[in-house]
Structure formats: structure tokens, C-alpha cells
């Protein structure tokens, strides 16, 4: 091999090695911020630990005396393997391990030590082939160019296009690639050729597989979507339940959509229940459709005149969780254990269709109409089933997405209720974690009168705030829409269009 080509190859290795090294550091920092939150702390400590570990690696490099080239290749393979799989391992271990931080910093240290070994080893391989000042100048030039490249492409290209998991596999593959090229070019100078070749190929296959199947790995680990620490994750027959926690609040997500934050859910649930129920002093029998978290039931139980609450929720796991888990049951004040409350796990549409008993107050608290399946629960047919279940003097209230973000969706629900004969009273409230949120009350005949009395201890709803709630300023004013029917599902189309602008 001609010396020129030899030098170029090794210097190119420096460049790749430097890029990869910085990428692993960025991957670890990003992941830690995603998973643990508080990105300043995470990045700062990760960078510190990483640099320190590189120092340890550099210090260790003096103990390598013979077979430098072989050792270099060996270390390249190890760096590729550990760095390449790091994001997957970290994601996976996050849900499995108690002391995630320990694992995280161990990984960072290990990668750091190996990366720290690389440059000193390379410099020593090259030491007899360059003048010292040339050597230092060249190696560090390439090292820093690699670092610049990594820090620019990581946020601009890699994270948006490859995603964090593919990025680490990709750079793992580059490390192995360097190992293989050096191995083949210098095959005569390598002592453990066979062994290294085998290792390199096995690692190559492993990383390739990871790169190809990254999407599946990702679906395991959607944790990135959640800014706070995940304290509970479960896939039930119907949905993916995630609960996250930080110092201030607990958040529940169903299929990635925020259902409530413990910090302000009282606003949402007070607004859901009291404008209707406080206007029905003689109400006895209440039906809740959806609302498997028990928070609406908690509000309903504030009325001593109510002697029976029937809650129909599809997902048994959800209602059991909010009955048994003490942290969650504290949130709903153990409402599901109250003898007045009966929980039925059934499909709401099918249940409503097949029942005839009448209720004085009905709460309809379903997820937003983001797909055709849920869209059916906002159709005129469904509201006709509700009409059948509502006593002549009763009130039904529907959670109706945001009248600010999705005015057509909101007013479509209003119009659909009217189309089956309800008089409606739309209203809205500001819930900090959701934004401006809307509800529609429907009633068969009487005009709605603002209630005179509310249960004691409410934090948001009273006669004064309710006056504001039923007032719609111009930016949320009524817009003309069609009626949502099973055979047109216009609401799902409105909802998709309107929310798409916000996502």
C-alpha cells in the first residue's frame, strides 16, 4: 500500500470516529432529556460524564503496547456495537429498570472510554509516519471537523429524518464500516484477523437489522412523546394507557392524547358536570358514558339528591385501574367504590341501543372524534339513542372538543344534537393544559335557567363564571355546519382538517 493512501485512510477514520463519538454523546443527551425531562441538567451532566470518560480512555491508552492496529479495530467494533444499540437499549431499559440513571451514565461512560481510546491509539499508529507537529495538526483538524459536522447534522437532518433510533444504528454501522475497511486494507499487519473479521460481520448484521426494524423498536418505546416521566404504561384490548408524572402533576394519555392533567382537571370536570346537574335539583339517576377515570363521577357525587350513578366505559382495565390503584383512586376520591356507583364495561353505542331505562342527567365524555369509529358516537343516530334514555326534564351534556381550535367540529356537535330535537346550550371553559374547551348541553323542552346554587367547595364553576362560559365571543362564534351522520361522518372530516393545523 502506498503511504499516501494509507495516511488518507487513517485520517478519514479519525474523521468518522470523531463524528460518531459526538453523535453518541448527543443521542444520550437527547434521550435523557426526552425520558427524564429537564434538558439543561441532562445535557450538562451527560456531556460532563462523557468528556471525563474520554479522559479515562485516553489515560488507559498507555497500557496498549503491541498490536495497536488490531486493538484499534477491536475498539472500533465495540464502539459501533455499543453506540449503535445505545438508544434502543436505553429506551428498553427505561421501562424495565428501577435506577435508570445509573444505567444511562454507565452506558455513557462505557462509550466515552472507548471513544477516548480511539484518538490516542490512532495517533500512535500514525506517529512514525508523520512528523509530530504534522500529526497533531492533522488529527485534531479532522477530529474537530467531524465534531462540527455531527453537531450540525444531528438536529437538522438526523433527528427529523432518521429518528433517534435509526441515527444511532446508522453511526454504529459507520464505526463497523471503518473497522472493516481498515481490517481489509491492513490485513497483513493484523494479528487476530479471523476473530476480528467475524466480530465485525456479526455486528454489522445486528446493526443492519436494528436499522431496518427501527420502527418496530420505536413502537415499543413511544416514550419520546411524553415530556414527563412515565410511571405507568399499559396496552389494553382497546387502547394504550400512559400515565406520566412530574413534581406538580399527573397526566393521563390514551393513545397518545392527553385526557387530563391533575393540576387543572377540576376545571374540565366541574364544567362538564355542574352547569347541567346544578340546574336539576330533583335529579336522582345519572348516566355517564365514557369517563373511565371516575373524575366526572367524583363531581356528580357532590349532589346528595343523586342516589344512583351508572357508568358505562368500554375498557375494564381503565376502570379497574382507577378503582384499585390508590394514587389514581385518590384523584377521583374513590368514586368507583361508592355504593351509589355502578360500573358497566360495555360498548356505549351497543349499550345505549339496547337499554330503555331513563336518566335525569347524562354525561357523554368520549375521546375526541379523531377517527371513524369514535365518530359514530357523535352521530345523530347515537344522539337519538340518548334522547330515548333521557327523562323528559333531563339534561345531557357532551364534551365537544375545542370551539377555539375546531369551531366547525364544535358547532357540528351542537347542530347534530339539535337535528334530533334537542334544545342546546353550548358553553366553554379555559383549561390550561387543553386550551379553550367546549361542551354542549341538550334538553328536551325547558329553557335553561342558570342554576342558583352550586355544591360547596367548587374551585371554578359558579353563577358568575357560568355567565362567561355560555357567552361566545366572535373568535368562537357559531359557524354553519352539516349534521354528523353515520353515512357522512362529517365531524371526523372537520376535526381532521381543523386539528391538522395545530399538529
Amino acid at each position: 500500500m502506498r503511504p499516501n493512501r494509507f495516511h488518507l485512510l487513517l485520517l478519514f477514520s479519525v474523521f468518522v470516529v470523531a463524528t460518531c463519538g459526538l453523535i453518541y454523546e448527543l443521542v444520550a443527551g437527547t434521550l435523557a432529556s426526552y425520558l427524564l425531562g429537564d434538558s439543561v441538567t441532562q445535557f450538562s451532566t451527560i456531556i460532563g460524564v462523557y468528556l471525563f470518560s474520554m479522559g479515562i480512555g485516553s489515560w488507559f491508552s498507555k497500557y496498549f503496547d503491541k498490536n495497536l492496529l488490531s486493538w484499534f479495530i477491536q475498539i472500533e467494533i465495540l464502539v459501533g456495537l455499543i453506540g449503535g444499540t445505545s438508544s434502543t437499549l436505553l429506551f428498553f431499559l427505561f421501562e424495565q429498570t428501577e435506577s435508570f440513571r445509573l444505567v444511562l451514565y454507565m452506558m455513557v461512560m462505557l462509550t466515552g472510554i472507548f471513544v477516548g481510546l480511539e484518538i490516542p491509539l490512532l495517533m500512535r499508529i500514525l506517529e512514525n509516519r508523520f512528523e509530530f507537529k504534522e500529526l497533531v495538526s492533522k488529527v485534531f483538524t479532522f477530529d474537530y471537523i467531524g465534531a462540527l459536522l455531527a453537531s450540525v447534522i444531528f438536529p437538522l437532518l438526523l433527528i427529523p429524518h432518521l429518528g433517534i433510533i435509526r441515527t444511532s444504528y446508522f453511526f454504529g454501522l459507520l464505526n463497523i464500516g471503518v473497522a472493516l475497511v481498515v481490517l481489509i486494507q491492513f490485513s497483513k499487519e493484523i494479528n487476530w484477523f479471523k476473530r476480528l473479521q467475524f466480530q465485525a460481520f456479526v455486528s454489522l448484521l445486528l446493526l443492519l437489522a436494528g436499522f431496518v426494524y427501527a420502527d418496530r423498536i420505536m413502537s415499543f418505546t413511544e416514550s419520546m412523546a411524553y415530556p414527563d416521566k412515565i410511571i405507568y404504561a399499559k396496552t389494553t384490548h382497546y387502547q394504550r394507557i400512559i400515565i406520566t408524572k412530574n413534581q406538580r402533576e399527573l397526566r393521563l394519555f390514551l393513545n397518545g392524547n392527553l385526557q387530563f392533567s391533575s393540576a387543572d382537571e377540576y376545571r374540565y370536570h366541574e364544567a362538564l358536570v355542574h352547569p347541567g346537574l346544578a340546574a336539576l335539583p330533583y335529579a336522582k339517576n345519572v348516566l355517564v358514558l365514557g369517563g373511565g377515570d371516575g373524575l366526572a363521577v367524583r363531581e356528580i357525587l357532590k349532589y346528595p339528591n343523586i342516589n344512583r350513578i351508572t357508568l358505562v366505559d368500554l375498557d375494564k382495565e381503565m376502570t379497574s385501574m382507577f378503582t384499585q390503584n390508590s394514587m389514581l383512586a385518590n384523584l377521583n376520591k374513590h368514586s368507583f367504590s361508592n355504593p351509589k356507583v355502578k360500573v358497566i364495561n360495555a360498548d356505549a353505542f351497543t349499550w345505549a341501543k339496547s337499554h330503555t331505562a331513563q336518566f335525569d342527567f347524562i354525561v357523554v365524555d368520549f375521546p375526541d372524534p379523531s377517527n371513524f369509529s369514535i365518530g359514530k358516537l357523535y352521530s345523530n343516530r347515537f344522539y337519538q339513542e340518548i334522547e330515548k334514555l333521557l327523562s323528559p326534564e333531563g339534561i345531557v351534556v357532551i364534551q365537544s372538543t375545542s370551539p377555539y381550535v375546531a369551531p366547525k367540529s364544535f358547532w357540528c356537535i351542537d347542530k347534530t344534537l339539535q337535528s334530533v330535537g334537542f334544545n342546546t346550550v353550548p358553553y366553554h371553559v379555559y383549561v390550561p393544559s387543553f386550551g379553550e374547551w367546549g361542551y354542549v348541553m341538550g334538553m328536551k323542552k325547558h329553557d335553561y335557567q342558570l342554576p342558583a346554587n352550586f355544591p360547596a367547595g367548587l374551585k371554578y364553576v359558579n353563577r358568575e363564571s357560568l355567565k362567561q362560559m355560555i357567552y361566545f365571543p366572535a373568535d368562537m362564534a357559531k359557524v354553519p355546519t352539516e349534521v354528523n351522520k353515520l353515512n357522512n361522518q362529517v365531524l371526523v372530516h372537520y376535526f381532521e382538517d381543523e386539528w391538522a393545523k395545530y399538529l
Partner: protein
Amino acid sequence: MSGQNTYNQSANLLSRLNRKAFLLRAGIGLTAAIAGGYLFNRKRSAKTAHIKGSIIGANAKIGHLLRDKLSIPEPSTTEEIEYLIIGGGISGLAAARELKRQGISSFKLIELDNHTGGNSSKGKNEISAYPWGAHYLPIPDPSDSSIISFLTEIGCITGFSPEGLPIYNEYHLCFDPEERLYIRGQWQEGLIPNLGLSLEERTEIERFFKLMEYYKTAKGIDGKYAFAIPLKDSSSDPTFINLDKISFITFLEKEKFRSKHLLWYLNYACKDDFGSTLNETSAWAGIHYFASRKGKAANAKNGDLLTWPEGNAWLAEQLRSQVADHISVNSVAFNVSVNNDSVLTSVYNTVDHKSKIIKARKVLLATPQFVNQRLLHEVNSDRSTSVYEQFSYAPWMIANITIHQLPVSKGIGLCWDNVMFESDSVGYVNACHQHVNQNENKKILTYYLPLTGKEPKIQRLVAFTRSYNDWVDIVCKDLENSHPGITEFIETVDIWIWGHGMVRPNPGFIWGEAKRMASQPINDKVFFAHTDLSGISIFEEAFHQGIAAAKSMTSTETHNGNS
């Protein structure tokens, strides 16, 4: 696929054919099928071995009874009755309903299978009911009073708007989203190809539908619509009925329609409604598909559909329940003879293995012509073999597929009707689409494959030669194109072969002599109703056939065969 037909086995395949030529063609077809079976069958074990199911219909044994008349005992008893209806498909059931509406009680309907409905049949498992044949009814023309009154009495129409337009039960109107097409690697909304078409092709497609709009409102010199449902109400103006003499493809060539995507779509439409290809379908029938539907409603638009998880078996059940006391299932008619004052029908019961004679004043044959040909071989009439030979029937394969998950694919999500561009099949229908409950992952997909390509007789033979494994391979291979990885999610595939799935409106048939001859009552004693006497196999035709035949049977006027 919509329409009706009770008998499904090939009748006397080898007779009256150019034997040598037929054997040669059949030989080629069968060799291909068997060789295909050997080559591909072996591979099934690997990817599709987990799939359970079987060929569960149609029941070939009963059909063959009629053909071979083996082991049928001599009739020992005689039953007397005013009217007898043979065949429990939609035509026969509609006729029975009509008799009942006229206040007649002395009548009976016999059906060879263990259930009525014909090819509006259904199956059911723990996930859903599903169709084994016809699966929808487009909202009808509000002036079609007999269908409108039927739909009203069964709760499918819940009322009428002030303008007099029917209000449909919205649980029966096909839910949104309705249709999608897999083309260029993704699913587009609607079945008419749109994605990635050139401006030229789009313009041509627009021009085609404009032309169809013209035919939709066109009337003949007799003042009738050129294309109507029921078909017999169409104008007989030669300007229009001459279109029956040429094939649809000839018509399209003459009108300079050349867009590959338009022609694919029209061929799909012919396969879907008639079981025949563009060159096997008459231009009149092809246009009828697009120009005859004049449905209107207060809460639906023209072209909207009524459908149920079990398809038109739901409608068949509504008809059946109105006349249930008059129905005998498992009863095969194997001979009809006409006396001076009565008609004698020999009937074999496939459960107690006894035969009897039913002596009726008049008999209505709501059966296809290849069955009538056998039943009437002792009866003198003008019908010759050449009349029967004009009737051609498309064989179909239907698969009901249980899946526990549908792989994610590009484009819009699962619809009611899902069609794949350039697939041999006409796609699949999600049988769970009309469920109101929240989506469960398990679903039943009803997959429809009209067996076109070779002449129907050969296709039929090939179809009955194929093994269950062959069919599973065919289905999976087709679905894998649009749903890579779906095979592993399939739990069961059940197969139904309709040997005579539906009558095919070949050029010259609908307005031809054979159909007219076969419709003529015999001596005011034997009457006929079947979609093959319309020439297109849809619910509306069967329904009107049955009512018209029942009316003419009970009419006090004497018939002399020229009605």
C-alpha cells in the same frame, strides 16, 4: 355481486356441446388447475399453514340429485294446493309475499337448500354475520312503489319528507367511509382511478360520466326511460335497444374512450355486477349499470347504498319471515308435468328421504333456466335446447376471511368496499362496517372473485377441481399485493363456490328472443320468475320478477302465452 340464484351446480355439462372441442378446452383448463395445484399447493404449508377453514358451499350433492336423479324414491303421497312456488331465492320469496298480500293462503314455497335466500345467503361467527353473496341495495327510485312499500314495512324506510322523499333508516345506509381503491402503492378515496392520472385521462373519465348522465335522463319515443329498473320498464326505442347488439368494448371504442384507467374501471364494474368482462357484456347492459339508478331520498343521495353485515341476506330474511308458514326447505323438485286442470310436481325431501307429488292449480318456477330445462323435460312447450343455450351464468368464488389485524398501509384507512387496481378479484367488503360499536381488531372481510377469462363452463369445471389450499393461495397472494404481511394475520378463510353465480348479459341477450321465449307462461299453468329472465342479477330485478309472475299467475284474465 348482487342478485339471486338458488341452484348452483353445473347441469349436464357435457351434453349438447361440441364434445371434442369442449373436452380439449376443458382439458387445458383442468391441467392448468391441477398443475397449478401441485406447484403451489406444496408451498402452502409454510406461510399459510396456520389458516383454518374449508370449502363450505355450495352444496354440490343436492344439485347433482337433480342432474342425476340417483337414489330418489318414487313419490308415495300427494298433496293438493292452489299455488306452488319452486325456488326460495329473492324471486320466489317476493312471489310468495305477493300471494300473501293478495290474501291467498293456499300456497307453498319449496327450496332445495336448508335455508331460503338463494345467493342472498349468509354466515355468522362470534365476530359478525357476513354475506355469502349479494351484499347491498342502492337506494331505489322513489317512484318504484313496490320496493318502496316493502322497504317501509320492514323499517328500512322510517318515513317520508314533506316533499314525499323517503327517509331511510340510517343504520342501514352504508356508513362513511364507503369506498377506496389501491393504486400506485396506496389507497385512494373512491373507486374511480384518480391518483396520478394525466389530465387527458381525467378529461376522458369526465366525458364518460357526462355521457352516462345523458343516458340517465334519456327517454325513447315511447316516452319511457331508456334505462330503467325494473329492466322491463325501459324504452324499446331501437335507438337504445340496438346497443344490446354490440359489446360494451365496441361501444367504448366507437365513442373513442381509450384511457387505460377508465377501461379498467368499467371492466371492474361489469365483473362486479354481471360477472363478465367488457367484451362479454352488452353495451346496453354496461350503460344500464351507470344510467338506470334513479334513487332519491330525503337523507341520502343518488347512488347511496343500503347494506347490512350479512348483506342482502337481511332483506331475504325480512321476506322469509312474512311467509315463513308457507315455506318447506330441504325440498327438491325433480319433475313437473302439466295436466288439463293441474300441475304435478315431484318433490324429494333430502332429510327424510321421501318423495311426494304436489298437485297445484298453478306453479311458479323461480329457478334458473338450466334447472327449468330439467324440470320441464316432459312438458310440451316452444322452448328448445337452443333457447336454453342462450343463458350464460358466471361462476364466482367468495371467501370470508377472519383477520385479527390489518397491516398498516399507505393512504386512507379501511372502508366498506375495498378494491385493488388490476386485481382479478373485485375486492373485499368489511362485513363489520355497519357495526356501531368501537372498532375491534378482529374483522371479517368478504372477498369476491368472479371467475372470468375462460368461458363459464370451463371456469366452472376448474373451480370445482381446485382444492381448498389452492383457493387460500389465490386469496392470500392477491391480498398480499395491497396488504404486505397480511397472511400472518389471517385466522380463517372459508370458501363458497357459486357454479352459476349470476346470469351474464352477453351481447344480444337482454333484448333477444331466448329470454322472451323462456319468460312465456305455459298453458296459463306454469309461470316463470328469475333474474336470468331480466338478464341482470340484482335484488330489484328478482323482486319485481317475483311480484310480476305472482300477479300474472293469480290474475283472473286468461293467459294464452302472449302476455
